[in-house]
């Protein structure tokens, strides 16, 4: 009996070690507390959103490498994995706030995950999201900011594209129902598209799926029967790629459009030929550098990673710079002073454009439209906010 309980204990310990080992990664050996300013990076490193999280971590790491100091102190990144899960996200944020005592937090990829951290950072640590676009992330929370535009604008951009560029008058929507980002984007698209067409029935069907679903053939067969001009599919990149793949094998030739989540290498790898021609809105293109910082970012990124950067990587880079700039202006890492300094960010030249935060803490900036062509993301158009 003793041997057995020992065996159980050892296997449990081994398990705990493995689990703990992958949830926290310290960027460097910590020097003395006083000489270091810690910035938390709160991203999905495993699970359904892991590819998006990895892209943002690259951006934050590059920024940290290029700008390693502020106020004469070393800046250290503390990266935690929120596991693409709302409950884990709250735990990960609490770890950063309570145990690591970070000065500020970057992230997360995925609006739902960011919102899960909202109540934890409120009143304690300011957070700057990179690519979380749902309005509710910052609305009513003075402690959450972001360096990207928000979904009402993104939904409008895609509705405009479908209406004027594709000549679409009927849209079918397939949305990830458990994802705040997808629901929000679908709603804003619907509002804008109905206004453009002046037809309340222009959205011919709205159908749902869950995060992690693999089979979408039933929804797609129903969509096929409604014969839409375009299919709007806001949701996570892996599910979206599978949806488009299955649609093509069901003989649906309708064009697919979506949001910024499409811009991950996995979308093209998993989707293959099926996702050719898919169009989506995003934040930034490496084909048109906007500021001096963009050029520096592009050059350094290509040198470091030997590939073209994704928009979210540039945004995570910007989130780091905005925090650093605010710490410099505030002259301290006191949470309230730092929060106020971030809120005052105006005309800041980041890699993905000029950042001016509005009263909600959201950046107001251009959207870029891209398309999948020969397995690459190709720039189509830039849309300015009105």
């Amino acid at each position: 009996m003793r041997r057995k309980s020992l065996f159980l204990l050892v296997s449990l310990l081994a398990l705990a070690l493995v689990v703990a080992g992958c949830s926290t990664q310290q960027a460097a050996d910590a020097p003395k507390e006083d000489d270091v300013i810690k910035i938390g990076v709160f991203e999905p490193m495993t699970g359904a959103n892991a590819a998006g999280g990895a892209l943002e971590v690259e951006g934050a790491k590059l920024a940290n490498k290029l700008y390693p100091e502020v106020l004469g102190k070393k800046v250290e990144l503390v990266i935690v994995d929120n596991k693409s899960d709302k409950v884990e996200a709250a735990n990960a944020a609490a770890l950063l706030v309570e145990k690591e005592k970070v000065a500020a937090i970057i992230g997360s990829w995925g609006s739902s995950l960011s919102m899960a951290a909202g109540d934890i950072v409120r009143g304690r640590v300011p957070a700057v999201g990179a690519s979380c676009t749902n309005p509710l992330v910052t609305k009513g929370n003075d402690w959450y900011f972001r360096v990207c535009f928000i979904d009402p604008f993104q939904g409008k951009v895609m509705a405009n594209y479908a209406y004027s560029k594709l000549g679409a008058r009927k849209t079918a929507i397939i949305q990830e129902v458990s994802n705040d980002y997808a629901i929000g984007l679908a709603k804003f698209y619907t509002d804008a598209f109905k206004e453009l067409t002046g037809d309340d029935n222009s959205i011919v069907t709205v159908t749902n799926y869950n995060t992690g679903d693999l089979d979408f053939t039933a929804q797609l067969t129903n969509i096929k029967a409604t014969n839409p001009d375009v299919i709007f599919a806001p949701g996570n990149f892996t599910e979206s790629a599978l949806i488009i793949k299955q649609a093509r094998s069901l003989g649906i030739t309708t064009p697919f459009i979506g949001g910024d989540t499409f811009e991950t290498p996995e979308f093209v790898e998993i989707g293959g030929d099926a996702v050719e021609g898919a169009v989506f809105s995003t934040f930034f293109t490496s084909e048109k550098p906007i500021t001096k910082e963009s050029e520096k970012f592009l050059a350094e990124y290509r040198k470091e990673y030997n590939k073209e950067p994704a928009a979210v990587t540039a945004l995570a880079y910007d989130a780091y710079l905005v925090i650093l700039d605010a710490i410099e202006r505030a002259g301290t890492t006191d949470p309230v002073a730092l929060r106020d300094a971030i809120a005052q960010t105006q005309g800041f030249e980041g890699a993905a454009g000029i950042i001016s935060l509005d009263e909600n803490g959201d950046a107001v900036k251009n959207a870029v439209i891209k398309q999948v062509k020969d397995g690459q993301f190709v720039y189509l158009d830039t849309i300015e906010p009105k």
Partner: protein
Amino acid sequence: MALKLFLQDILDVMTPEMFLQHLTNGISLGSLYALVAIGYTMVYGILRLINFAHGDIFMMATYFTFYSIVMFSIPWYVTFILVIIMTGALGMVVEASAYRPLRDAPRISILISAIGASFLLENLAIVIFGGRPKAFPAPELFTKVFMVGSVSVQRLTIIIPVVAVVLLFALLYLINNTKSGMAMRAVSKDHETARLMGVDIDRTISLTFGIGSMLAAVGGMMWGLKFPQIAPLMGVIPGLKCFIAAVVGGIGNIKGAVIGGFILGIGEIMLVALLPSLTGYRDAFAFILLIMILLFKPTGIMGEKITEKV
């Protein structure tokens, strides 16, 4: 009443072609569930152990396939055989390290050990393969689409049920007509007596796990061909769903697992097809089905009588 009206709306729109397409989709998904459920139920039938690591062994098989084809450029037909052998070996290793030391322990300890083995495999996969999903290399041979009337059918939709049925009969033959099969049946009835009769228990149980894992490997590869995206936690939901399919069919009964798989797959697709507003409850459907079966016919559709085994 409201539901009836609602259904009426759907049925007005639903053409016979659409219905056939939905049915084809359902059969395709159901046969996949059936394939994985066979392995689950076989191990249970012989050892009375729910092998919670089954879904994770299934996941490992898809990664083996991925690395074999993508990294080592081994042709798919060689890969398929290699992966089946490797996964069988993995199953035997899991059995030897997590279950054999607990052979005489109460059943609950083995169950907990199974859950531990499942977590260990999942986290190992995250550490070794990384958390980001990978694209499963699917040869076009399997994924090509052809049309029957206006219904699109993927070749896989034909291949998977055929594979499931062939494996079903192969397995029935193995258990009923071979010496190893006889040993398995003896072990399933009574460990001690079987041992006294000269059956090598460890070898038989190891073989059972090996075959169960090989079935998981075939299921995993078919799954990857149909849903070409693999991730370390991909085995969790299929594991649960196929467990449900096995229980619905009568856990321990191999033919029942196939029937349970089809009921679950077709039921899920029809739920989404006929009641689109309930799409979000698709997984709930599977679990409600499980609860209903446990409440009203705990032995499942093809289940054996409980008395025999105690």
